[in-house]
């Protein structure tokens, strides 16, 4: 089980997770290569299959910016990998879906980090993620009641909407009814 997470990790239906891990020596080269390949060929990420995910970001931090006294320099023995994503749904089903749908993405993200346990056991992986997860202090969503699926469905409806309005303006009632019912049939999964 993941450790209990605060309500500061959620806003409406949206959740956030921030995972901080330490990267093994020389493995930042692997991260760099992985990021470069993914930027060139975004489809290799495969992450679009995860329909609960709004946004995700990956950063490698080699040193912490210095701002002068009274900051004490923290020299990082190991670079840090900061992973953060925003998703809808509950944390545990989300992590389980991540493991089931994107084991390769999980491997390419965390195999460079100390303590990576693989994805053979969802329980072990979830426990590990729980250890590396930072609790939020504050989380805001501009549309807390909208899930990713709702948003994508809304854009699909919107794309057809203008044609419906035009059809309502120019077609006879009978022709409009045909157009409108066709819309309902096509978009029944989005409504």
């Amino acid at each position, binding site marked *: 089980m993941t450790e209990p997470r605060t309500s500061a990790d959620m806003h409406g239906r949206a959740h956030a997770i921030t995972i901080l891990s330490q990267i093994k020596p020389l493995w930042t080269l692997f991260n760099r290569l992985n990021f470069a390949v993914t930027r060139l060929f975004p489809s290799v990420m495969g992450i679009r299959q995860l329909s609960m995910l709004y946004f995700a*970001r990956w950063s490698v931090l080699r040193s912490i910016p210095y701002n002068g006294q009274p900051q004490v320099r923290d020299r990082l023995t190991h670079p840090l990998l900061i992973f953060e994503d925003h998703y809808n749904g509950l944390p545990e089903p989300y992590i389980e879906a991540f493991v089931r749908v994107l084991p390769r993405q999980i491997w390419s993200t965390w195999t460079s980090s100390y303590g990576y346990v693989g994805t053979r056991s969802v329980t072990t992986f979830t426990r590990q993620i729980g250890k590396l997860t930072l609790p939020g202090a504050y989380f805001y969503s501009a549309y807390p009641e909208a899930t990713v699926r709702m948003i994508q469905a809304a854009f699909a409806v919107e794309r057809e909407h203008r044609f419906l309005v035009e059809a309502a303006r120019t077609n006879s009632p009978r022709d409009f009814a045909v157009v409108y019912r066709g819309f309902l049939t096509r978009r029944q999964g989005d409504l």
Partner: protein
Amino acid sequence: MKRDRSAITPLTILTPIRPGEKRELEAYVAQLPRDEDSPFRRLSSTHFARWVIIDRLASDYAGAPFPVQPLRMSYLLFTSTFNGPVGEYVEELRVRLGAEADAVWGHCVNYPGRHRPGPFRRYLLHNRVPVHMWYSAYDATVTEVRAAVDLRRRHIELARLVQELDDDKDLQRAFVEEFGG
């Protein structure tokens, strides 16, 4: 990544918290409203925003690096997802987040305050963490997302309503009443 004005951009900023002020900062951030009264509501380009306090590196797991080197400072991690260029967004933070920006980053080492635009901008950008990889499920502004979601809701309501209409004229009239045409 696209660089047009509506492109969705991730920003990550890591600032050191002044020694002894972590709890006060934590308490302040925790009481900030999130819904209609959230200070981020004033930044209309913000999709998501988040503050996280980092005060330790996890070491209580199998395979953790040894020896453990604890952090000597606590840090405030700010992440935001918004539309537009970073420079303009940092200015938005200064102007629209306003007093809350001072109340939060005022607990961080050598934060210059929002009344000094240049130093404010330089401070946040100096502490910016590069985002090396990024995923976005959609590419739209907050206004576009809200409008589309609202339009879908209205279509669902209309679809329920017209289920009971047999006459095509009534169907067309109901649609025009709801959406024009």
